Structure formats: C-alpha cells, structure tokens
C-alpha cells in the first residue's frame, strides 16, 4: 500500500461543513440501541456480589444456599475464572479486578456473581452467598499510602525505577522521571521562585449510561457479546484471554455508547457475564447499577503534587520542577507518569525535572478519564505559573506567551515539537473580547493552558461501493460523539460525492480487522486517515473500471469531483463517467468495487488549548458561580466543526464539575459515601453559562487533511483556569480541588484570620 499520510494544502467541499449526523434520527426517537437495550431469547439476569470492606482477606465463599434457590442457573466465584494470564501481570490485575481472588481490595470489589431467571431471584440469591472475610487495615489517601506505616496492599510490590531495589514492599509501584537540563542551576539564575503544594480529589467520568452487556456462550465454544464499550476489539482480546477462548470465536458487537470518556476502555462485567453464560448455558444480561458504577468501575486518580518554578525579572522561566503522586487504586498504573510527562509540556524550558510516583490505595482501579492525569498536573503548574507572573508583575497571558513552546522546542517529556498551537491559542486568548470584559465585585478572571499528546494507533476500515453508487463505510472505531458523521464527510470528500451518499457503520469484531480503542482522541484522526486510504484504494479500482469501459490505458484516467475523466486531447469526446455509472456497470467489469485499509496511524499531532473563565465567589458562603467561559483550541482541521465545538464545550463542563464540586468521599471505614448522582454532583444545566469556543486550525503535518484529535485537551485547562479565577475573586490562592463551598470559605476565613 503506497498511502502517503502527509498533509498537503487543499480546498474542501465536504470537510468543514456541518451536516446532520447519520445516527441522529434514531437517537432523537428512542430507537438507538445502547448497552442495556439489547435482549436475547431465554436470557438470564446477572448480578454481582461486592465486598463491603475496603481491604479484607477472603477466607471462604459458600454459594451452596444460593445455588439451591429456585430460578438460579449459575453462581460463580474466582474459581470459575481460573488464572490463564500466563505471567502477564497487567492481565492478572484485570482478572483480579473482575473477580477478587484472595483479597477484596476496595469497597465494591466483585467477589461472586449469579445468573437467575429474573432480577428479583438474582438479588435474593446474592443475599444467600456467605463470604467469610478477615478485615484488614486499609488506606485510601494517596499521601497516607506512601508512608512507611501504611498497610501494604500487595506484598509483592517493590518500587520500580529507583536506583537501589527496595528491601521492603510498599504501596509505591513505580517512580518515573522526565526532563532535561539542570534545575539546580536554573533556580540559581531565578530572581523569583514560587513553590507550592496542591491536592486534587478523585473524580468519576460520570457517563450517564452504566456498563451493560449481554453475553451468550454456546456449547460449541463460540460466543457473542453485545456491549457498550470504547473498544470492542480490545474487549474481545481481553475476554478471550481471560476465558481461554480463541479470539475469532468471540464476536463482540459494540452497541451505541452512552458516554465513556476513558471509563469504557476496561473490562469489568464482561468476563463475568461470559463466565456466567458459559456455566448456565444461556445468554446472560449484566447491567451495573449507578452505585456499582461509582464503587466498582474506574475513576481517575486522586493526587498530591508539589511544584517549584523560577523566573528572571524579565519573565523568562529558568527552571521548573514537580513531584507528582497519583493514586492507582489497588493495581499498578502509569498515571503519575502521564502527569509527569504532561506537566510542563506547554513551555519552552532549559531546565525541567518531573518525578512521578504511582501509589496503591484501597479504592477502585483507576481508569483513564479524558486526557488522563493531565488536568491535575496542569492545575498545579498553571496555578504556580499564575502566581509567578503576579510576583514578577507581568500579565499572566504575556508571561505564558513569553515562555510558550514553539516549533523546534524540545518538550519537557522528550520529543521535539513540530508545528504546534500553544502560541496561537495564547495570542487568540489575549485578543479575545472576553479578556477585556469588565468584572464586578467578588468576581475574578482566570486563564490557563493545557496539553495532550493525542494518539493514533491500529486502524482497519472497509469502504464498499454498492451497485447503485451508494457507499458503505465500515469502521472499527466506536463512535463516541459523532464520528460517523465526520468519517462520512471524509469519505465523501475523497470520493468527490455527496455526504448523503455515504453510510458509515461501526462493524463488529468478526467483520473487520483489529482496531485499537476509541481513546487518546484517536477516533476521527486515525479512522479518517484509514478512510482516506480506503477511498484512495477504491478510486484506483474505479479508474481501472472506467479505463476498461472506455478501453483506454488506466494511466490516462484521473479521478476528479466524483468522476473518472480521460485525460488528453485524443479523449476529447469521452464524457466523464460518474461513480454511479461505474458502479452500475461493475457486474460486467470485474465485480464489486471496494477499498480496504489497514494501517497504524502514526503522527497524531499534539494538541494545545487556552481557556478563560470568570467566576463569582460569595464571600459569606464560599459558593461559586461560573459567569463566562471561553475555550480556544487547535483542531488541526475541524472535520465537522459543530462536533468539534461540542468536544470543547463538553470537556470544559467536565472540568468545571471537577474543579468546583465533584469528589469521591470515603469514610474512615474505607467505604464510599457518595456513590450516586445526588451526592456526587455533576454540573446541571442551571450551573453553567454558554461555553464559547474558538477553533484554530494549525495543520498536523502527519495527516492528509491536517487533522488533530480534539476530544481530550479541553478537560486539561479548566481546573487551573477556574482555580486562578477563584483565587483572583477570593483574594487567596486555592490549592485543593474541588473548590467546594466549605473549602473556599475555609480559605477565605484563614486569609482573613491571618
């Protein structure tokens, strides 16, 4: 395949327009089928028994009474999911998280499951399962878990990444370090140094659709799984490995997905549903309750971060340093490492050092949440940057512009940047009317920058041209927010046909080659690249067929605006052949016309954003209100600008919730206190203003149309932008997120008292 993914400047006919999405009507009429909307004949209802303890040894599980209850068709424990992970530590952790083996490691950890004829019987059966626990000391706070006195969750963990191998196990699974230059020398050159410590609490992605699946294992060893997921191919691999199946015998169909934001990239219930179905010999539907989603799916890390930044009087940063501690739940992760990589990525720094510590705690296993780990690091760094600008006496935007990374800058995490958008987003923010709008009493303005890597990954796509000239586009990247519309636009663009002529579907795992998850903001970036490649392969066939129809050499046939044209004066009388005409004749010219593509979409362009917000603080109660919010972000090329705006607005709104309200609250007994939407309060319509957006387009050189991922970066700046605004409004630096009314009030009172 001679596909050239490099960017070349062009004018667009379809890309950049804003048509209605192809899955839209089904979604406004209630017809679209999500995870819990699918049923099979004879299906059973699955339910999971969960540990009420934060940390406990499981001495014994007695399922005999539950098994005898009429209507119960299967009861499983870890014994029904034998360890087939063959030394793969990450897979073992997934297995153990799906069903606790020796110890329950958090409140909500699955310990057994049942399948019964109805929900009532299944719930009754759970009550008949007797689990003998030996309750152990627990730890849920990231700083507490690092202390030598903390209970150790896993005594086979010895900190990796330290020079001398530790002699004792601990909760710190890994130390990672990034940076370059000499920070000690850099700080010696500084006229001003700001040093601060910050904390952020654990939040959940908060997708409105709980995890749901229907599993059907047949006695011939084949199986079907219908599930809401961000990556059905990855789910197939994980489930097949954990259940000892060949991947090709497990067909996974991704349903419509009711939000994921990183949280539907991990299997939890699916291997359990398959094991139940295998044991019962019938299909099993397993749907989590909201309480289970909070207690037992994957929230983000809680963090504790120290930042130190130094600058000269002229506003040049001379050194920057951060130590980042991220909670991982009870299993190893690379969350602090991602924080350490992203922390200073916006800036051009000669001397920079970041150190990350991955910390085990008795909380659910951390999962990705939109630009995972970056928002917390940005909160700490961008707060310190604001303070430093203030100390120097510089405008915070000017200070950032002065130190912003540029093309050719060596990033704090290693690579040298190509063309990037941090400078342009800052300039756009500086010139935005929002920056000049007047503020009232108790109101403050804040701004902050954010970075995300973006990802490409393995992608496989089929494009089939029907005999009527309509185009079926089969992609393997789950559509989480409108990508079928953007990919249809790309197919239409490349083929030179109307958007309405293309129908995009997300194919199941038996119909298409492997695709990575829709994560890392890769959906539209990678799948559009694969669509372009598939379309170009189809165009090659279309040209061949036209050449055959005309009986001319194929090299004389070009493809323009949806038509084959014979180039050259000698062909002056040949009327152009449309895609439709060539398709109609395909039965006589060699059969079906299709284009296929399989590629690794390298070169995902990094993404930057700058956010501005105005906050009003009530000094009597500590309550806050978001008055105005503006997002400026580089999209590379906005394929469907309305959905790009939607990503910017959605990320900002999630960031606002994280900054002001949302947090996991654990009691002293290690149990989660607010596992519901009443007490874990995500922003509602009346909490927010309109969210203004400005799309910048700095083409990604590694994509034919210049596309960059847009989904994640928008959640990186809000924590910091809002903290800067609240700090400016309240007159005191906020260092602990969320900035809930009690925390804001305490900070104001401490400042008054001091």
């Amino acid at each position, binding site marked *: 395949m001679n596909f050239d993914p490099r960017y070349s400047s062009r004018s667009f006919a379809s890309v950049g327009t804003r048509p209605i999405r192809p899955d839209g009507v089904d979604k406004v009429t*209630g017809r679209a089928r999500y995870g*819990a909307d699918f049923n099979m004949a004879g299906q059973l209802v699955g339910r999971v028994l969960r540990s009420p303890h934060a940390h406990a040894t499981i001495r014994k599980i007695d399922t005999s009474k539950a098994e005898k209850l009429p209507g119960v068709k299967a009861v499983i424990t870890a014994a029904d999911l034998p360890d087939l992970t063959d030394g793969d530590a990450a897979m073992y952790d997934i297995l153990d998280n799906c069903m606790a083996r020796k110890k329950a490691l958090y409140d909500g950890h699955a310990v057994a499951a049942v399948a019964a004829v109805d929900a009532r019987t299944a719930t009754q059966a759970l009550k008949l399962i007797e689990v003998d626990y030996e309750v152990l000391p627990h730890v849920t706070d990231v700083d507490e878990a690092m202390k030598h006195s903390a209970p150790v969750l896993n005594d086979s963990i010895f900190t990796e990444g330290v020079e001398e191998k530790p002699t004792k196990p601990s909760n710190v699974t890994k130390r990672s370090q990034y940076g370059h230059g000499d920070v000690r020398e850099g700080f010696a050159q500084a006229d001003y140094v700001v040093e601060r410590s910050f904390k952020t609490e654990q939040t959940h992605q908060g997708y*409105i659709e709980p995890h749901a699946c229907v599993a059907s294992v047949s006695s011939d060893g084949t199986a079907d799984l219908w599930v809401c997921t961000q990556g059905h191919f990855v789910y197939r691999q994980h489930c097949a490995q954990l259940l000892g199946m060949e991947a090709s015998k497990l067909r996974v169909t991704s349903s419509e997905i009711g*939000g994921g934001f990183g949280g539907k990239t991990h299997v939890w219930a699916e291997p359990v549903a398959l094991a139940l179905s295998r044991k019962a010999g019938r299909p099993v539907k397993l749907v989590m309750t909201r309480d289970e989603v909070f207690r037992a799916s994957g929230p983000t890390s809680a963090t504790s971060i120290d930042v130190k930044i130094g600058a000269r009087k002229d506003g040049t940063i001379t050194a920057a340093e951060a130590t980042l501690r991220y909670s991982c739940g009870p299993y190893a992760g690379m969350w602090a490492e991602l924080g350490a990589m992203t922390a200073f990525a916006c800036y051009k720094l000669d001397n920079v050092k970041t150190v990350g510590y991955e910390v085990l705690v008795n909380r659910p296993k951390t999962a990705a949440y939109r630009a995972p780990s970056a928002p917390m690091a940005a909160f700490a760094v961008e707060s310190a940057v604001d303070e430093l600008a203030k100390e120097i006496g510089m405008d915070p935007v000017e200070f950032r512009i002065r130190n912003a990374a540029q093309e050719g800058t060596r990033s704090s995490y290693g690579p040298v940047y190509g063309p990037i958008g941090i400078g342009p987003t800052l300039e756009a923010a500086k010139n935005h009317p929002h920056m000049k709008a007047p503020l009232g009493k108790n109101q403050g303005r804040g701004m902050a920058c954010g970075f995300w890597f973006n990802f490409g990954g393995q992608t496989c796509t089929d494009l089939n041209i029907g005999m009527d000239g309509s185009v079926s586009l089969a992609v393997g990247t789950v559509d989480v927010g409108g990508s079928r519309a953007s990919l249809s636009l790309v197919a239409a663009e490349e083929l030179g046909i109307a958007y309405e002529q293309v129908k995009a579907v997300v194919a199941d795992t038996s119909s298409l080659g492997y695709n990575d998850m829709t994560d890392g903001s890769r959906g539209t970036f990678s799948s559009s690249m694969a669509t372009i490649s598939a379309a170009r392969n189809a165009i090659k066939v279309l040209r061949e067929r036209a050449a055959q129809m005309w009986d001319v050499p194929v090299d004389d046939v070009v493809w323009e605006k949806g038509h084959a044209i014979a180039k050259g004066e000698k062909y002056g009388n040949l009327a152009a052949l449309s895609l439709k005409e060539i398709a109609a004749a395909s039965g006589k010219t060699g059969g079906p016309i299709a284009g296929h593509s399989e590629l690794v979409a390298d070169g995902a362009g990094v993404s930057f954003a700058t956010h501005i917000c105005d906050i009003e603080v009530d000094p009597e109660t500590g309550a806050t209100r978001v008055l105005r919010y503006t997002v400026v972000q580089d999209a590379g090329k906005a394929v469907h600008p309305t959905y790009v705006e*939607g*990503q910017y607005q959605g990320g900002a709104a999630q960031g606002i919730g994280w900054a002001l309200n949302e947090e996991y609250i654990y009691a002293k007994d290690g149990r989660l206190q607010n596992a519901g939407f009443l007490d874990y309060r995500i922003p509602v319509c*009346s909490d*927010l203003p309109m969210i203004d957006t400005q799309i910048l387009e700095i083409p990604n050189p590694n994509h034919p149309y210049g596309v960059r991922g847009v989904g994640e970066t928008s959640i990186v700046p809000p924590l910091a932008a809002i903290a800067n605004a609240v700090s400016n409004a309240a007159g005191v630096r906020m260092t602990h997120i969320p900035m809930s009314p009690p925390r804001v009030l305490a900070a104001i009172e401490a400042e008054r008292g001091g």
Partner: protein
Amino acid sequence: MAGVAVSTTINGDNVEYLCQPDETLLDVLRDRLGLTGAKEGCGTGDCGACSIILDDRLVCSCLVLGAEAEGRRVETIEGMAHGDKLHPLQQKFLEHAALQCGICTPGFLIAAKDLLAKNPDPTEEEIRFGLAGNLCRCTGYDKIVRAVQDAASVMKGA
C-alpha cells in the same frame, strides 16, 4: 408474588400488562413493553434519563411504579414524532448537534416538551432551570439550550 393487572394508555394506545407490585414503570416500559427509549442512568431520580409525561406531568419513570399507571396517560419518547415527521424539538436537537452520545437525549426531549407546553417562550434562565433535572455529561448543555430556544421560536410561529 402475584402480578398486578394494569390497563393504561401509552402514546395514545390502550395497553394492558401484568407487573409485580414493586416493579417500576421504567422496568415495565423497557422490559415488558419493549419501549427502551427511556433509559436508566441512576434508578434514583437524579439523572432524568427515564423522563416520561404522566397525565401532563413530567416524572422520572424509575420513581413511579408500573401499577400506578392504571387508568392514566403515559407519553414516552417513542410517541414524540408523528409518523416520520419529527417534533420540532427533535429536529432542532439534530440541527444544533445537541447530542453527542445521545443517552440523555430522550429524557431531555421529553423534559423540554413539557417545559414548552407550560412556558412557550422561556428565557435562557428558565430553560436552564427547567432542564436542571436532566444530566448530560457530553455537551456542557450549550447546544441543548440553543436547540430548545430555536424550537420554541419555531413552535410559536407554527
């Protein structure tokens, strides 16, 4: 447990079903009647994804028992369009891209329909408070509010 016989009206059609005394109307709609447009996001009345209209009143169907529908009128998302003609709210949600994942959309449409029935010319603030019982995690609500504003002006003109 013996089932309760219920006779009710759903989207204008007479419907009869048997349900358990402790079964929610949401479960009846989804599991017994195949009307899966109403979604269960929480089961505690906090997210509004299961919104329906019961005798002209907006309710969370997860907080209503199936048996309580006896003799009443139920409106669900499945009854919002007339044949293949979408309701103006449905059309404006599509045009404004007021949905990303779409799981909250049926609940928002039902809540917005109820809001406009009671207040045909709402201010932005009235829309925001009128829809505050419905959670959306994808959009930040901006495009939802604009779609409702646009639908309201179309419906006034009609």
